């Protein structure tokens, strides 16, 4: 057997992050775990395609992202309300009691965003990726990343606070 470029262990190191990202993205754990498992399998099947092992983290994110997009295309209808309630309650329990309400509201509002908006907010705000890295993961021009991020933040602000949405027509 030829020694694999990337082994199980290298991929396993990224699984907790992938899973966190996937859970926040899809709003429930079982679907998130399916997505991560698909991602791991696809990565293993294509392990030789990755030339630079130091890029493994971003490469896995790209795979997960693309798998998520194609699964969403498969089923357009998306009624995430029911499962996200469970997640919101779960996540609220992992913070101090005083913050529970805020976390619950946030998780619910976040679930109402589009996938594109959730993705961009998670990659920048949660995963700490730079705009350039986000552009690489999503295979988008950096300008698109920045304008999408601006819209996502504004949309989420409105969902959280009500009020009128600031129209962001021109980014530059």
């Amino acid at each position, binding site marked *: 057997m030829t020694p694999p470029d990337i082994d*199980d*262990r290298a991929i396993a190191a990224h699984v907790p*992050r992938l899973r966190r990202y996937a859970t926040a993205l899809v709003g429930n754990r079982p679907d998130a775990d399916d997505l991560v498992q698909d991602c791991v*399998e696809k990565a293993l099947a294509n392990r030789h395609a990755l030339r630079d092992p130091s890029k493994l983290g971003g490469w896995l994110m790209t795979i997960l992202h693309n798998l998520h997009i194609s699964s969403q295309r498969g*089923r357009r209808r998306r009624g995430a309300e029911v499962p996200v309630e469970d997640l919101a309650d779960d996540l609220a329990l992992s913070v101090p009691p005083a*913050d529970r309400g805020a*976390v619950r509201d946030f998780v619910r509002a976040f679930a109402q965003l589009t996938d594109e908006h959730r993705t961009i907010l998670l990659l920048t705000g949660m995963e700490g990726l730079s*705009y350039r890295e986000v552009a690489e993961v999503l295979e988008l021009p950096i*300008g698109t990343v920045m304008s999408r991020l601006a819209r996502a933040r504004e949309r989420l602000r409105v969902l959280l606070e009500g009020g009128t949405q600031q129209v962001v027509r021109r980014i530059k």
Partner: protein
Amino acid sequence: MSGTRNPVTEAELHAWLDGELPEERLSDVERHLADNPDVAQRFDRYRVQRSLLGQSFGPLIDQPLPDRLTPPFTVREPSAIAAPRGGRGTWWGMAVAASLLVFVAGGTSGWLLRDRMGGRTEPPTAAFIADAVAAHRVFSVEVRHPVEIGVDEEAHLVNWLSKRLGKNMRCPKVTRGGYELIGGRLLADSVGPVAMYMYEDAAGRRITLYIRPSPNTSGSAFRFAQDGGVRALYWQDNGLALAVAGEADRDTLSGIAEEVYGALNS
């Protein structure tokens, strides 16, 4: 500040929030925020959003992982991967059934060892697996004499068994699952000599590896069998029939089988 030559853009404000603003623009952006309290307030809200994002989802990283997301990872057959998502429950079941697929190439009807795609042969017989499980039952409970030759004489053990079976019998000394080789013995069954290695983990759980020469065979799929509390994975490779047996879960057995396969083919 719209009258200045370089007005501050929305994108620059976000870049400022994200720490990506070029330093030479910092003072312009800060002045813009000071002059436009509504904008400053909006970006305050964005900052709060970001911290709520971390507070809400951050703890997810510490959640225990389910088995299917811990190594050794499995790879489904291409036909299973192409299956529609609706039937998740069933095709995840198939994935578990294929738990050794790390070194299995695809194919719709069976899983062949990657190096042995060409010659599919009969799988090891039921008699073989019964012998392997029986040997496990007899010897794994032995307190004083579980093995004939201990791991302290590993080289001698390996040489001896290799000579008697006419094949290289090099096996992993410690497995990733934490099982350590404690020794082995020579057995006899209806066909002739059989080698048995025994592994033990820190909790005293034992796994046995049962190896019988099996001439004129090439590779076969990994197969799973269960008899009472004893589970076994068995396969043929390179003129040998092999079985890993124990009370351990299937993933653990798969991991050990994989390592044995690797050691015997290195």
